[in-house]
């Protein structure tokens, strides 16, 4: 593996907002930075905008989507005003994507070796012979047993975990600076999930690619990521090191989310704390805290715009009450 360890950020995004068809933005004011070899987790529930971010940083949103950003640097390329031609050059080469469902990312009628080689051929990075050799090298890199045999097989001849390894090999083919992984293990069994997360962790070390890992699974984030951002209704509500954010959640939404999940330490067969209500469209349009309508700690002051507040070194939360000591043990969640 000839790894070029990057020195520039894999991704730098400032003030990103995304809206569809002129409606309320589904993502607003999002700042993200993924360093080389770093895994940044993005966590949140359905509709929080996490997948839209993943698509936006690869220029994959439909034309009905409006993407605005003060800065959108993918690897060393400023993509803020990029057109489709610019994106074609970046996708697969500077940044690539690992999807939830590997079968939808693979061509069912093409041998996997050829599919991996195709990435290099399309970008003109290798001739046919070199691309084929590199495909085998990549299969070895992602620890596919019997790479020569597997290269000649079709996706349907492989298990889900093996297919996801192929997708990761394709994503890494051109030595990208950024890997966007959108729920890469959600369709996999836990023992296979462990293999794939382990592989992602090794790959970022050997290739130096930064990873944007989008997931709804707090456990996956805790185990894999260096930093995490928590999204709610299109906004980042908390950011920090996963162990710190999960142990000391400082935004009431993060606290409620963490509390609602059964873990090894929750009391069996006792009621789990719940978050009342749901996200309404109007929550995304409010100038103040978007969670306030469901929050047990909300006051009138929450109607004012909420900046990210520093609660600890490298730990911020979008809640003006987040530094109050009496709120630090947020066991009191509305039922």
């Amino acid at each position: 593996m000839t790894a070029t360890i990057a020195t520039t950020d894999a991704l730098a995004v400032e003030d990103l907002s995304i809206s569809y068809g002129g409606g309320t933005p589904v993502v607003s004011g999002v700042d993200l930075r993924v360093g080389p070899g770093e895994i940044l987790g993005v966590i949140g529930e359905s509709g929080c905008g996490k997948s839209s971010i993943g698509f936006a940083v690869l220029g994959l949103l439909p034309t009905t989507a409006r993407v605005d950003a003060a800065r959108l640097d993918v690897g060393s390329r400023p993509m803020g005003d990029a057109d489709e031609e610019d994106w074609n050059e970046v996708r697969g080469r500077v940044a690539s994507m690992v999807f939830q469902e590997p079968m939808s990312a693979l061509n069912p009628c093409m041998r996997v070796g050829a599919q991996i080689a195709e990435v290099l051929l399309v970008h003109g990075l290798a001739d046919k012979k070199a691309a084929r050799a590199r495909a085998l090298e990549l299969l070895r890199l992602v620890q596919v047993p019997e790479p020569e045999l597997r290269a000649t097989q079709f996706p349907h001849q492989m298990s889900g975990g093996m297919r996801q390894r192929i997708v990761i090999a394709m994503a890494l083919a051109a030595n990208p600076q950024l890997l966007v992984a959108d729920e890469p293990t959600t369709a996999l069994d836990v023992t296979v999930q462990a293999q794939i997360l382990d592989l992602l962790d090794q790959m970022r070390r050997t290739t130096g690619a930064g990873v944007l890992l989008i997931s709804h699974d707090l456990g996956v984030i805790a185990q894999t990521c260096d930093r995490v951002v928590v999204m709610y209704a299109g906004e980042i509500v908390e950011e920090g090191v996963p162990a710190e954010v999960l142990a000391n959640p400082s935004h009431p939404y993060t606290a409620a989310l963490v509390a609602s999940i059964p873990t090894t330490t929750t009391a069996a067969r006792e009621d789990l704390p719940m978050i009342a209500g749901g996200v309404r469209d109007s929550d995304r349009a409010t100038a103040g805290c978007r969670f306030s309508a469901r929050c047990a700690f909300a006051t009138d002051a929450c109607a004012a715009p909420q900046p990210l507040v520093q609660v600890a070194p490298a730990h911020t939360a979008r809640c003006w009450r987040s530094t109050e000591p009496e709120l630090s043990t947020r066991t009191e969640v509305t039922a």
Partner: protein
Amino acid sequence: MTATELDLAPRPEQAAEPLMTLNGIRQEFPASGGRIVHALDGVTLEVQRGETLGIVGESGCGKSTLARAALLLRKPTAGEIRFDGDDALAMRGGRLRAHRQRAQMVFQDPNDSLDPRYKVLRSVMEPLLAAGVPRREAKEKALAALEAVGAPDGAAGRFPHEFSGGQRQRIAIARAIATEPELVVLDEPTSALDVSIQAQILNLLLELQESKQLTYMFISHNLAVIRHLSHRVAVMYLGRIVEVGPAAQVLADPLHPYTAALLSAVPDPDAGKRERIILQGDPPSPTQRAAGCAFASRCWLATEKCRTEAPPLVHSDVAADAHGGHLVACHRPGEGQEALRLGLRPASSTTV
């Protein structure tokens, strides 16, 4: 399997007759090339009245096939099912219809049990009408069930698409409890839901179990959810039960190396980074029936004996309570977990 008989020592708290007994259930499906898929390879289980029996395992282990067999949705190839002492597989006609009222199912996708063209009331009434309950009484019972699950006001007169995924699952649960069943089989009922909605549904299931004295067979790949709900847990691998016992024992002190590996593979937000067993490879094809232990091909403890001789599901001396109903099918019970506890690294483990 060499031994399908349970090694049952007297247990005072479970002296009562089980609600359902599955004995040596086999389910075979024809596959291409004349091969046979052994989806269930001799499953023997008891479901006690009022308990939640968690069934955990990965895709293809046969857990959903087991659910369907238990509810007589598909007749098993071999084996015996006793429900409340009666031979369930021998039931026909009216007796079978009456039986179906007593055992209901909740699916992962609520759309599987709610017809999009029917208003909610009709879907919830359907199992009652099928059982011959008069229309007026069926309507009353359906409305009561919708109220019991906390469905929104006026839900009965609306269509499934008007509800969120969580609300739809509530309605599917209402349909399942409308006939006042004793047994409810839940197949991944929260897997398609967001975690905050999952908490609502789990709380509802606990509350209903208490108020209606329901017996649950709860199928999930999510160990944390299984741990939260179950009194007892059965772990499946490739159509066989490899370990079964009280949830606290199986999940804290697993005796089978597969259970140990499964537990250590689950990313736990509370545990952070820790020693994990990462199993190599994938489960073998269920068309190839293993002569020995089904897990031997991926087990780091496997010996020649494991590959040739199937271990019976029995009590083990190394269990915390040697006669407490904690059964394991392994020639080297407890060794997988012991190695992790001592910090010895099994060949296939890594710290991440």
